[in-house]
């Protein structure tokens, strides 16, 4: 095969465009109201045509589903609602045949309280190997410096278990007890889980909640050296057994702390850049580039083999954990006047509603996402501008069924609407009659077409995934301008963060004699001279230019 799922290039993730989807929300193949692998398999052509190169599947393992599958009860099987292991294998093969890589979740930190390991542990005598799979204490006063993450739902990281007659540790919901990584047997178990999926051919793992693996008293219990040692061991295991597979760390931390999860290129291949995302939205609302330039300048360099994962929206709330209190207040006022939209320390909205369903703003944000240094992640449905449902609990409002058509159940399922795992979005602006794939397929001016073209264009230039970035400093702060360089190539990106036309004078004297060629239309602009280069940008306009030798 010319291109296989397991790409020959070990750095394939640097050029990837990742599409995040919950299997349950994408397509229901067996008409039971819940999305499944059969349905996802049927939609692979859609994903291939969209142009994404990698699928990131949210947890699909057997689970009580109290945290949408992040409470796993069996790591090496498929939840019956989503199909069988055989269905997964068929899907994986079909994805690889289409050149799509597949990344799955690896929830290392905790299990469901229904997992056999926990059921066994709570009944096992204290100090026994079975008991030691989890973190127990006779008191709930240990690790008091560890913050509570789900502040809206939990009051403590300890919960009393009447069966064990002890407290157990959990950084998330109380039904998600943390595994004890001080126990080598737990590490061995998890490596066996990795091997199971590696042998099936998955291309990578998204490591959930990675900073919290190990606990120590008088610390925040986050980012501890022992946690990094675990990650190194996992990476070494993967490199030895299945080179070329990728680890993506979910570490909602400041860039300097996240940096540690790359190690010396010997821990995770990728990690999310959490802080940049809210600041992109902030810059857009402020019409000022400073939040973006500040956070990017605070971002430390990472090893050559590593990569940032960038996103605008995902399955969780728009997290505001990594911003200052003032910034958080601003974001709440700017983007969630409706208190229903707030959850924990974040805003539970999709991309389109966040920006008032403004197509120019969506396009600008995607333009930034695609041109910043890293691998972009697109959340399912955002390519058609899907909306959300604030009246569904927790983060379920952004996990509604994919809107395929204007037909019953948005074409997601042929089941009785009452059987759907979640109601489809039906409001007049974002509801499935107005926003769906079928309609946008037949409209060459639709957001879906625009996204396809952008993805296609972005894939043409390795500089976006692999190049360096440096900001220019035009006097007009409503304009964000930066250079991306990779090998001989130089790309100039210019974006207008404001709702009105803006001028920009760029100091491009270092490139005098080169000609900017606008990349979307392949249009030559005037050759750069020694004077400031003048551009006019329309509202929320952005341009990408290749700087080429004149007449070359």
């Amino acid at each position, binding site marked *: *095969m010319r291109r296989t799922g397991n790409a020959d290039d070990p750095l394939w993730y640097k050029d990837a465009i990742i599409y995040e989807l919950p299997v349950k929300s994408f397509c229901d193949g067996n008409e039971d109201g819940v999305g499944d692998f059969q349905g996802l398999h049927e939609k692979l052509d859609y994903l291939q045509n969209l142009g994404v190169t990698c699928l990131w599947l949210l947890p699909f393992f057997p689970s009580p589903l109290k945290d949408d599958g992040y409470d796993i009860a069996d790591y090496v099987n498929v939840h019956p609602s989503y199909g069988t292991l055989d269905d997964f294998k068929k899907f994986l093969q079909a994805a690889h045949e289409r050149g799509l890589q597949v990344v799955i979740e690896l929830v290392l930190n905790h299990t469901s309280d229904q997992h056999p390991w926990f059921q066994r542990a709570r009944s096992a005598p204290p100090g026994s190997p079975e008991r030691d799979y989890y973190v127990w204490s006779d008191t709930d006063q240990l690790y008091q410096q560890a913050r509570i993450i789900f502040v809206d739902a939990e009051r403590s990281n300890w919960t009393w278990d009447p069966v064990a007659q002890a407290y157990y540790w959990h950084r998330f919901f109380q039904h998600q007890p943390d595994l004890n990584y001080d126990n080598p047997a737990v590490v061995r178990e998890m490596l066996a889980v990795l091997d199971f999926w590696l042998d099936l051919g998955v291309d990578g793992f998204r490591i959930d909640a990675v900073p919290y693996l190990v606990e120590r008293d008088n610390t925040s219990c986050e980012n501890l050296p022992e946690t990094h040692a675990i990650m190194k061991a996992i990476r070494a295991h993967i490199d030895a057994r299945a080179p070329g597979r990728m680890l993506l760390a979910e570490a909602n931390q400041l860039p300097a702390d996240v940096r540690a999860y790359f190690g010396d290129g010997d821990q995770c291949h990728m990690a999310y850049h959490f802080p940049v995302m809210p600041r992109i939205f902030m810059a857009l609302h402020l019409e000022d580039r400073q939040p973006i330039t500040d956070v990017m300048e605070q971002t430390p360099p990472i090893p050559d083999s590593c990569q940032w994962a960038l996103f605008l929206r995902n399955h969780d709330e728009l997290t505001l954990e990594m911003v200052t209190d003032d910034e958080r207040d601003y974001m709440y006022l700017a983007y969630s006047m409706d208190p229903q939209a707030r959850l924990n320390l974040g805003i539970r909205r999709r991309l389109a509603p966040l920006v008032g369903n403004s197509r120019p703003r969506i396009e600008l944000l995607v333009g930034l996402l695609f041109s910043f240094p890293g691998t972009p992640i697109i959340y399912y449905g955002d390519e058609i501008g899907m909306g959300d449902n604030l009246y569904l609990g927790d983060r379920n409002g952004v996990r509604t069924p994919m809107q395929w058509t204007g037909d019953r159940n948005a074409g997601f399922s042929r089941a009785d609407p009452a059987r759907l795992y979640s109601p489809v979005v039906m409001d007049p602006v974002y509801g499935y009659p107005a926003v769906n794939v079928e309609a946008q397929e037949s409209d*060459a001016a639709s957001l879906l*077409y625009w996204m396809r073209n952008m993805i296609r*264009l972005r894939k043409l230039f*390795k500089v976006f995934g692999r190049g360096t970035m440096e900001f220019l400093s035009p006097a007009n702060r409503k304009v964000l301008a930066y250079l991306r360089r990779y090998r001989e190539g130089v790309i100039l990106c210019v974006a207008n963060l404001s709702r009105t036309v803006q001028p920009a004078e760029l100091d491009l004297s270092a490139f005098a004699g080169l000609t900017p060629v606008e990349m*979307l239309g*392949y249009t030559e602009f005037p050759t750069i001279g020694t004077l400031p280069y003048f551009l006019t940008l329309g509202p929320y306009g952005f341009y990408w230019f290749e700087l080429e030798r004149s007449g*070359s």
Partner: protein
Amino acid sequence: MASTGSNSSVQGADVPASRADIVVALTSHNDVRTIGAVARALRDGLARYFASSAVRFVLADAGSTDGTREAAREAVGPSALMEVEYERGAEELGKLPYHGHPGRAAALRAILQTAQGLGAGACAVIDAGLHTVEPAWIERLIVPVLTDKFDYVSPYYVRHANEGAITKSIVYPMFRALYGVRLRQPAASEFGCSGRLVAHYLEQDFWDVEQAAAGIDLWLAVAAACGEFRTCEAVLGARVAATRGTPVDLSTILAQVVGALFTDLEHRVDVWQRVRGSAAIPIFGTVPGIGPEAPPLNVDGLMESFRLGYRELREIWTWVLPPRTIVELRKLTETVPNRFRFDDRLWASIMYDFVLGYSLRVMPRDHLLRSLTPLYAGWLASFVLQMGSATLAQIEERVEQVCLGFESEKRYLISRWRWPERLR
């Protein structure tokens, strides 16, 4: 892949049997009528030009049943011939590529692997089904590699206006515009290459691609053009091939050749979107005059095919061709024969629009490619009407203009590729 037969040198150089300076490879499929003469011509050429070199003959035969292998052994001596076996693929047996050589990609791969295994500094590949091979071909294909350090030697064949017309109209102009190398016959079955290029070829990932059987020769030329390799042409005179089995119809040939070109360019976007203009390459040998007898061609039939295609396929074309092109085509259908001219830039833009439609899969790819046939017929009619009694130089000049049309319209292809606009 396995090798059988002796590794002994054709000529008397005293080197280990596991080594060779030069590999001369034949690809064959039921070529008993020609392979003996071909092999003898090559053997004579080796004796004349490379008497002191260690040479191996390699035969990659696609399961001939007419005694081709035996004829080859008889011609070069059974002990001098290495016969390589390779998988031809069951599906290909029922779907013969236009050149009549099933499993050609696997054959070439086996040859190149053998050449690499022997440590050959130069390798020449020749189709055993030719009537026109001469001893001088050996010199032309090998000397540029061994003496002048070229990596890829492409044949320059002398052809009438209506010979090799798919190459003249599509493959050469598009290859040249995309990759910047003025290589006139990039899909030829014959070529010479260096050991360095052999290694590069074997690292390519196209060998097992579905269209490889028909497209491999072109893809090898593209791989050479896209890498840091020195490329040249060698004048080989005329190329007359024996017919293998039932001739393949024009529509299928177009679909196979153009499909191979389009498929490959999708994987080399990062190269061709950065290439500007094109460069001439050295040519070895003197270009002779063209023979007086051009094969007959029914120009009226071609024009009628074009007009019929416009009536019947216009609806399909509107999926890939913009309205202004459709209007231009309509005007052409109404043009009298003595003024019937296919504008070069119009032709180039049509081909580029088809490239884009193919890439975007606006319809089943085979349907799209076959719908090209009447357009090609129209172009060929126009070309022959202009070039009917032209000299080779005049034909070359005209093809040059076609190529310049493709080069000047390349900007159109890039802009449309980067931001495709759906027409339907």
